[in-house]
């Protein structure tokens, strides 16, 4: 049996696509191995969103080449789109497969092993052509509803590497959800590059979510990440549904209006905060996380101070902080006022500390409350680990619990580890 290993960099969408490839290879009779040394096939699903991502992707590719002498090395993902010619010039890489054809990698490898010569560009492109992820991998799975982005934020390379926004037919989405629920998944994550831009035959992202919530099984729904301009004024009402997890990763990027304009973001700080307030009016303990870019060209001390202020005010429990990274071909790359890396690092550190404080305060505010935890694993000490509906990690004595089950857990402590974890105990047997 041929062996195959995978390495994934970057976003949740990339992770989902790797999981789907793992399933496809497994179903095609390959043995999927972890670690990736000496395998017959090594697949590297790359990222190119920042210089750091490029560096990590290059390093991972080089490791795969060194660790798999004589094996096939397949490079895919956003770096394969952004630096295609450079990668193709590397003779040690067998195939460079762009995002459009990523779902066809099994076909490509099969053909290669049969001695057929197939150029990746001759494969058909289908960004939604991935197999339903097998339950053995995780307790939650992503449902890809959309790909690509047309926003053209001035710092972002994604429209160039993921292409124009395309939406998956609604019927395909609900079929996919039905299938993963039949497979036993209890939690699905609606994902895409810019899911707020979902538009298919007049249906919006709200329609997609409503359709999914109509399904009768016991499961819950998360949204992977969302742009603040990507939904209508009644979006928050969807979260009144018991299947909707009360958590959103709502991308802020900056707390300064002049910087948001220069980023070509299509909202103001005030309109962003109105969204937060609307949600918290409905659910005071709603959990928000976000993305912030520090050190965007021209970001002054005052601009940064405003970002700090918003991160504090919005009480984000996690801030994915990016140091602004110049990407060739983007408008921001040509802007004046590029800032030194040292300053970006310092600003990133300030945001990180605030978000940690926010997270600890939020976790402490949950003590005495209960969470419906989806058990992801039970360790050797008999402790069950999982996430509650607010997307906080919870650990509790499992008894005879098994994974992939919901469990109502009372929270009574915060373990101040890195990252911190809520400690709880079973308050009711959940039969789901």
């Amino acid at each position, binding site marked *: 049996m041929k062996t195959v290993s995978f390495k994934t960099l970057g976003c949740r969408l990339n992770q989902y696509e790797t999981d789907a490839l793992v399933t496809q290879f497994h179903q095609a009779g390959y043995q999927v191995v972890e670690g990736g040394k000496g395998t017959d096939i090594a697949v590297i699903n790359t990222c190119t969103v920042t210089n750091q991502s490029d560096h990590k992707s290059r390093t991972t590719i080089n490791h795969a080449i060194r660790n798999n002498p004589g094996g096939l090395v397949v490079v895919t993902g956003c770096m394969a789109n952004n630096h295609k010619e450079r990668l193709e010039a590397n003779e040690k890489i067998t195939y460079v497969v762009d995002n459009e054809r990523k779902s066809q990698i099994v076909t490509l490898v099969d053909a290669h092993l049969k001695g057929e010569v197939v150029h990746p560009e001759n494969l058909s492109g289908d960004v939604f052509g991935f197999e339903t992820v097998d339950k053995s991998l995780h307790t939650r799975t992503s449902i890809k509803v959309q790909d690509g982005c*047309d926003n053209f934020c001035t710092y972002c390379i994604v*429209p160039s590497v993921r292409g124009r926004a395309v939406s998956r037919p609604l019927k395909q989405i609900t079929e996919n959800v039905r299938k993963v629920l039949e497979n036993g998944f209890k939690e699905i994550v609606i994902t895409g590059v810019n899911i707020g831009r979902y538009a298919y035959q007049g249906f919006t992202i709200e329609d997609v979510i409503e359709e999914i919530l109509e399904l009768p099984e016991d499961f819950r729904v998360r949204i992977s990440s969302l742009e603040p301009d990507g939904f209508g004024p009644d979006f928050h009402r969807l979260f009144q549904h018991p299947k909707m997890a009360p958590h959103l990763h709502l991308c802020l990027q900056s707390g300064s*209006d002049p910087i948001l304009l*220069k980023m070509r973001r299509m*909202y103001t700080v005030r*309109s962003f905060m109105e969204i937060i307030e609307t949600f918290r009016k409905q659910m005071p303990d709603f959990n928000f996380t976000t993305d912030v870019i520090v050190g965007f060209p021209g970001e002054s001390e005052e601009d940064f101070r405003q970002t700090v202020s918003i991160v504090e005010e919005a009480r984000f429990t996690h801030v994915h902080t990016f140091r602004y990274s110049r990407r*060739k071909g983007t*408008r921001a790359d040509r802007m004046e006022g590029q800032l030194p890396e040292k300053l970006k690092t310092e600003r990133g550190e300030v945001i990180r500390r605030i978000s940690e404080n926010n997270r600890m305060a939020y976790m402490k505010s949950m003590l005495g409350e209960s969470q419906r935890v989806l058990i992801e694993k039970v360790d050797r000490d008999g402790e069950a680990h999982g996430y509650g509906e607010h997307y906080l990690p919870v650990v509790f004595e499992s008894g005879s619990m098994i994974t992939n089950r919901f469990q109502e857990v009372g929270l009574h402590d915060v373990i101040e580890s890195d990252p911190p974890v809520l400690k709880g105990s079973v308050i009711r047997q959940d039969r789901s």
Partner: protein
Amino acid sequence: MNVQVENSLFVTEKVRILTPSAYVLRFSRNDMEFSPGQHLVLGLPGSDELREYSIYSGAGDPYLEVLIKEVDEGMVSRQLRYLRPGGKIEVKGPHGFFMGNATSSKPHRLYFIASGTGIAPFHSFVKSHPGSDYQLIHGIRTIDEAYDAADYDQERLVTCTSRDNRGSFEGRLTDYLRETEIDPEGMFYLCGNSQMIYDAMEILLQQGIPDRQLFTEVYF
């Protein structure tokens, strides 16, 4: 849904000089469909240097046009000026959502607020929807920069000139906004440099216009 034409070569029809530093580049339509407010990314074929320009022509015109300001240090804006009829251009797009909801905002008045060549998407909109209820407020230095002013209903056009007194309002467009009564139910579309947009938004927000009625497209 728009027909999307990617990475295609288009053919120059003509370059129409408006001022010593501004011109309109007209080129083949190649069946491209677009909505007013969308922009194209263009440059010379094979070049890595491409720039974004809002579409200036109307949705019904048999050609595409963009309004270009030649930038002193600019590369692409200078190259494109010297294109001859028949010359090839690489064009990507159309992109953007800037005025996507403008046609559905009836019965509310549309306010188009532009600085300099930021008038381009509004020119496209007015040519595409000539019967619209709009007011165009154009901030320019001198009246010479009132590009193709005759194409607009003169009663709906306010030229705010900051360096001469030949406009319909002498001063910056932000001064005009502060001094003018506006329809609080109106929809406001702002296009131009980021400082103008930021200042104008501040004024409109202070006047009680909610964020949801403001739409921006920044030029750099």
